[in-house]
Structures are given as structure tokens and as C-alpha cells.
């Protein structure tokens, strides 16, 4: 069982914290589905780590919201903010449940793989070839979201995972986990394997 830690009040920006919670909850869903699709324990463990972080964030968010309310009108509209915060946390719990399927070796039914092929959003992983033009670039520089509608959600280097990488430089032999349209992922895979140099 994971230890439950005491959470102390920290002054934070409600806006920044809620943005962080929304982003983490969405990232967790992608990571969790990836862990199921690729039957990957490490990714599932990363999801569990993020889940713990979310549990802390929701407490801190609520403490700050309580101090922000000055009158009845504030209380009415901030209750909605608190609700949305706690819902991003529910989503992260759901993601953790998918990760739990992987960690508890419940087994990934072959149908799951087929489901991911037919769903609107696709997931893929690819090992970066040393011939690829992407080698030596940061994920931010690759500008994949704008170019091909693909987002790199995690990168594995040896035993080490980088989650939601932005400024890290991607090197040959890194394994990229990405999500996006089937077409965009196809392009990314060809460029990552060094078959073509252009994303477009």
C-alpha cells in the first residue's frame, strides 16, 4: 500500500494548479492506455506516481480555494472550481485503475490491441534510429503537435523514463511513446526510423 502523507497548506495560484491538474489528468489517461496497449509495467508505475501527485494537488487546491472565498457569491462560484479540480482527480483515479490492470498482471486481452487500432486516437512507440533527423532535437523543437498532430507523451532511455518531455534532447536508441492520428503517427515512425527526413 502506498503511504498517505500529510498535506500542508502552501500558497499557490489556483489557476496554475488547476491547469497542472488538468494537464496531468489527461497525460495520465494517455500513459495508462499506453501501458495497457504495450503491456508495460514501467509506464503503469509512472501513472501511479502521478496519481499520488494529483491527490496532493487536489488538497492544496481546495485549501487555497477556501481562503479565496470572501462572500456568498465567491463561495457559489468557487464551489464549481473545487468541483472541477476534484473531477480531474477522479479522472486520474480512473487512469490509475487501468495502470492497476497492468501492475496486477490481470492480463491484457487481445481485443484491447484491436480496440486501440480502431479508436479515434492512436498510440504508437518507435525506437529512434541514429539516421533520424529527429536525433539531437528537443521534443519542443520537433514541433510535432503542429506539424503532424502527434504528441510525445513519454520517452524511455535505457531504464529511465521521461514523462511528458519538452526540453530534453532526444537521442538515438531512445524509445518514443506517442499519440495522435494514425496518419501523423505513421509519419513520425518513418522519420524516427530514418526512412525519410521530412515530416510533411
Amino acid at each position, binding site marked *: 500500500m502506498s503511504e498517505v502523507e500529510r498535506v500542508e497548506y502552501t500558497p499557490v495560484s*489556483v*489557476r496554475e494548479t*488547476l*491547469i497542472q491538474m*488538468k*494537464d496531468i489528468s*489527461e497525460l495520465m*489517461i494517455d500513459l495508462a492506455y499506453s501501458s*495497457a496497449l504495450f503491456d508495460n509495467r514501467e509506464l503503469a508505475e509512472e501513472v501511479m506516481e502521478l496519481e499520488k501527485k494529483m491527490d496532493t494537488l487536489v488538497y492544496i487546491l481546495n485549501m487555497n480555494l477556501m481562503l479565496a472565498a470572501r462572500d456568498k457569491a465567491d463561495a*457559489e*462560484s*468557487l*464551489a*464549481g*472550481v473545487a*468541483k*472541477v479540480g476534484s*473531477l*480531474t482527480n*477522479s*479522472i486520474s*483515479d*480512473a*487512469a490509475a*485503475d*487501468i495502470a*492497476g*490492470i497492468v501492475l496486477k498482471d*490481470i*492480463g*491484457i*486481452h*487481445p*481485443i*484491447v490491441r*484491436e*480496440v486501440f487500432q*480502431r*479508436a*479515434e*486516437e492512436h498510440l504508437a512507440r518507435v525506437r529512434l534510429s541514429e539516421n533520424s533527423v529527429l536525433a539531437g532535437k528537443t521534443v519542443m523543437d520537433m*514541433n510535432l*503537435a*503542429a*506539424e*503532424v*498532430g*502527434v*504528441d510525445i507523451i513519454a520517452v524511455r532511455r535505457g531504464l529511465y523514463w521521461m514523462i511528458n518531455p519538452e526540453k530534453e534532447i532526444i537521442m538515438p536508441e531512445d524509445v518514443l511513446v506517442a499519440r*495522435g*492520428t494514425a*496518419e*501523423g503517427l505513421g509519419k513520425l515512425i518513418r522519420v524516427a526510423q530514418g526512412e525519410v527526413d521530412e515530416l510533411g
Partner: protein
Amino acid sequence: MSLAEDRQLYEKICNDLVELKDTSEMMMDLAYSALLLSSQQLAEEVIMLEDRMDNLHTEFELLVLSSRREQEEAKGLLGLIRMGVVTERIADAAAEIAEVVIRSGEPHPVLRMVIQDAEETVERIIVSENSPVVGKTLREARIPEETGMWVLVIRRGNRWLRPKPTIILQAGDVVVASGYAEGEDDLKNLLAQ
């Protein structure tokens, strides 16, 4: 159970789970859009989808349970059932976000800021007369390929239209799309030029 029947069942389970997953994700996007736009109508749409999810989820679970043929598969089927439960919970969360819109009328401004500043943003753009997408089907308009943004819903007058690939875009359509903030300008250039 014959092999053909087996295949048919497998196919149905697969289709249902695809729909559960896609719908749950679409509902999240729509719920955040409803918050961003303070749109009661869109919020009600999300809550209606939640009803559909409940029925679909029950159907899916019954199908999975009726397929238990061999003991060794039981664990794999449990994984499937759990996956269905997760999509249902995501849909529930989406419906509850939509309820915040309905309960509070005008959501707190910080929520709008959060949705616009998050990595994944929601944009609302009116299709202009000069846009190259006018008269094209959504499939032909290739919006995700060109801009990296997904169309969530299209408002035409008072109607909210689901983004079917065969729908023909018209000038004046309000396109609600989500994606990475980087795609926003491309989307504006494509639709509102």
C-alpha cells in the same frame, strides 16, 4: 458456441469498447468546451451522452460475460471489464463537469483561463465565406491533418452537430475544436481567412 458466432461476439465486444473509449474522450472535450463557452446547451448534450454511455456500458459488460468460454481467458476478460468501467468513470466525470455549467450559470472566470491555458486548448472559430473548407465534407477538409486540432462539435444556428466525416461545412458554422495550443493559428488560418 460455433467459431462464427465467436467471431461475431468478439467483433461486437471490440466495437462497443471502441465506442465507449471514443465517446468518453469526446465527452471530456465537450464538457471542457461547455465550461469555456458557458454553454448550457452543450452541457446538456454531454449529460445526454452520459445516458447513452450507461446503456452501452451495460451492453458491453453483458457481452463480455456471455463470452466466457475457457477458464484461462477469465483474467483477460476481467481486464476488458475494468477497461469498460474506466471509460464509464471518465464519462461520469465529464457529465459532472457539464453539471457545473448548469448549476452555476456563469462558471468562475478562472475555469475559462484554465481551459485556454492548458496544453490542450479548446477553440471556437466561425467559418468565413472565403475559407477553402466551405462546401467540403469534414473528411475532405482534413482539419486534424492540417492543423493538429480535432473538431469536437459544430454549431449551425441553434443546432449542435456531431462531427461526422460526411458533414458538409458551411460559411457561418461555428467550429469547436480542441488540440495543442500550437495548432490554434493554423486552424484560424484555415477556417477564418
